[in-house]
């Protein structure tokens, strides 16, 4: 890991009312750096180097998953941060929120089974050419759990072609592991600028050998390495 060589990376994990995995995400981030919880109602990112929009059911998700959270006050700052090149990771509900906010392409639809599904799935790293997967090699298999009702990635043909052409798919479900009917087995995509990444699987639940696999650490290590390389100490890009 990064041990002493690089400046400590500071993550901010957003807490919406109804977030469930924000503490899990904070614990995962703390394995590679510092992490603070950011309150949904504050217009303040507290100078963090990277933002995590965590899993859960923000605002109950009674309307459409992520549809209300994108209007939370803190999302103004998250959007500015992303446009300025800051790293933003959306996990599960966070992925849904970032799609709703227009920071990521595509949309998440209800699973083909129409049911919530928890499963430890195998993912394939599609590219290491991103700040989120640079610690991996293409073709690496990661064992990470999914847990969602609304995780079927969808994009219209043209948009899907563009996503594929620009190498924006970072993770795919390994053959036979697509749990939700996602197009092209897409488990996670980034934006064109490659600094915003959303995925349905939960890497924060794969960071401790006691409670599962440790394959999710690669995502957090990638972020920490990227920040350490690119950000002067204490600064936020832009």
């Amino acid at each position, binding site marked *: 890991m990064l041990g002493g060589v690089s400046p400590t990376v500071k993550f901010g994990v957003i807490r919406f*009312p*109804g*977030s*469930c*995995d924000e*503490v*899990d995400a904070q*614990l995962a981030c703390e394995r590679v750096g510092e992490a603070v919880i950011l309150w949904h109602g504050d217009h303040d990112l507290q100078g963090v180097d990277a933002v995590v929009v965590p899993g*859960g*059911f923000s*605002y*109950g*998700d*009674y309307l459409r998953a992520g549809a209300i959270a994108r209007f939370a006050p803190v999302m103004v700052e998250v959007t500015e941060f992303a446009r300025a090149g800051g790293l933003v990771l959306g996990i599960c509900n966070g992925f849904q929120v970032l799609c709703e906010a227009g920071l990521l392409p595509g949309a998440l639809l209800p699973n083909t089974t129409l*049911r*919530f*599904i*928890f*499963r430890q799935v195998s993912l394939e790293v599609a590219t290491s050419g991103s700040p989120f997967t640079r610690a991996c090699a293409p073709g690496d298999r990661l064992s990470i*759990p999914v*847990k969602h009702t609304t995780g079927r990635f969808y994009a219209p043909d043209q948009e899907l072609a563009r996503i594929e052409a620009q190498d924006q798919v970072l993770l795919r479900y390994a053959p036979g592991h697509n749990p939700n009917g996602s197009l092209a087995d897409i488990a996670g995509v980034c934006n064109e600028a490659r600094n915003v990444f959303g995925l349905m699987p*939960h890497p*924060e*639940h794969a960071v*401790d050998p*006691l*409670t*599962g696999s440790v394959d999710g650490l690669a995502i957090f290590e990638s972020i920490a390495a990227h920040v350490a390389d690119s950000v002067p100490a204490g600064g936020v890009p832009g």
Partner: protein
Amino acid sequence: MATSTQRHRALGLTDAEYGLIVDLLGRDPGDTELAMLSLMWSEHCAYKHSKKLLRRLPTEGPAVLMGPGENAGVVDVGGGLGVAFKVESHNHPSAVEPFQGAATGVGGILRDVFAVGARPIAVLDSLRFGEISESERSRYLLEHAVGGIGHYGNSIGVPTVGGEIYFESSYEQNCLVNAMCLGLAPHERLIRAAAAGPGNVLVLLGALTGRDGIGGASVLASAELGEGDEAKRPSVQIGDPFAEKKLLECCLELLDSELLVSLQDLGAAGLTSSSAEMASKGGVGLDIDCSAVPLREAGLEPFEIMVSESQERMLCVVAPERVEEVIAVCERWETRATPIGAVNDSGRLRVLSDGDVVADLPVGVLVDDCPLYDLAPAPPQTRLYAPPPAALTGEESPGEILVALLGSANLASRRPVFEQYDPVVQSRTVRRPDDADAAVLALPTGEALAVAIDGNGRRVACDPRRGAAEVVYECAANLACVGATPLGLTNCLNFGNPEKPHVAWQLVEAVDGITEACRALDVPVVGGNVSLYNEAPSGPIFPTPVIGMVGRLADPARAGRLAFTQEGDAIALVGEFAPSAVGSELAKLRGEEIAGPLPLIDERAVQEAHETVRQLVGSGSVRSAHDIAEGGIAVALAECCVAGGLGATVALPEGLDPFAEAPGRAFIVSGSPEALAGLQVIGRVGGDELEVAGQLEVAVSELHEARERGLAKFL
């Protein structure tokens, strides 16, 4: 008094009970008062047919921090931490509307746990339905009850880590939905429900009060369901996990900030029961202004406000100078907080509406004076339960029997159900469903908790006393398999109509069986719940005591697993074991009578077997441990094989029937031949078949296939 007679009978009070109320008050109760009294004196709130019996259960132990009577029991787990837990039924609401019934069952048990100041860290559930292969209604109930549990637990961020499901025709009209929750709290955050301090303010937290669930749980759970139950549908409450998530975080912040004197959840009988119980425990009086209660719709009568079972509400007592701070914390969590009354030293619960006193009752009359009834137990004179239809002819080979058992709805993989629940949120789940016989949760102290929930109605129906004791032993056996020592248990007693002598007999025998097993294992009962009147015109449900047990283990990294993992490992049988076919899953598939007696229980041998397995697992000497329960040793071996994708070759001890059952008494362990040298080695792990010498030889892939499809084909 004709109208008065109709009034109290319609509310479920007997003439004698009403007469007693009049005597105690020295007058006829008013409408609001009678509504409140009828609920407080219902079976659900007053335990009038079970309270005397429950006094037999042992409730004390060195680890007990809070025993029965609080919102949840609490045991010490070291490091200044306590674990709160309780199991509760939501059977009757779930029979009427399974999704919301099960969802609000989870919501209610979560509130019980955070009411004592503990953060909920795990949910388990115990479900019973009619024969799924025959009953479309049971398939519907299963699908929607599971959906409701997942909806609530997943959305609120509490992992569902275990559970059990069985299908028997006796549950066709009365499904069982029992939910258990565990919570974790530092000792100093534990809080009791006693109102205290005259002058303090009563503050209602959470959701608006509406007409939903007027008399819901308490009415539904206090009588048999019959024809025309659709009329009871409006009595079922609707759950809002998002509201509860905010309420939960809000309450924990209020407790961490030491802003509350006491806290209580609003469950059955709503504001009436929560306020009366708080006043009773604190030996104080309360004035409640029901016109201050925020309503979801205008025009609720005072009695409706006082008995509404609207979900996601809590009641707390706050010192007057802290009320502003409480409201500020609640605003941050977008949770309503409304002062609705005050504590005084009158010993009376007074309800005011627009300045008028609409109820003025001694707290003791509400809480303590409901008559407790002695049961009139008598063993049944006739057969209570018809034998199940035979699915096997008796001509099958042992291999075919094993495949049939693994593919039966009762023994098949629960994956299609537990995949609908999040078992990992909160990052402490060390053993998930199917990893081991009990769930294991890491503690911040470096140690871990283990928890399991068990019940077996058919065996209790065969032999109530021994069957109920077996449930306790099986639960403890499950904990032993992960290396955990029991700390305490919670029980939910699901029975038929206790006013019928044969049901009373089942209840008394079962409670005595539980008591004997608790004493033998030295495990106290720290809380629980009773669900009676689970009875249809065709008869009562199988008597179904459900036990949830919590234990502690030193090293989570050594928590046991059930799968065979290593070619060449030895397999050993631990425990003295004289199982029989009575009450077994095979007996069911063969359509045999529901009749005892079950095999004897040698308490000392059971304790020794559990201790041996605990030591083997805790010391890291074995690679797997699994208790031998339903389906006998053949099914236990098959489960170990399927879980690890490895075969085994076994020779059973002389005369041991591979399918006979005696749950809670014996185990299968695997490990290196050297590690198992002192044990009764019966075989080896390896190959891709399960071979039981002279009995059967079946490919692990075939066992796997049967087990995977058995329940999945109905969902």
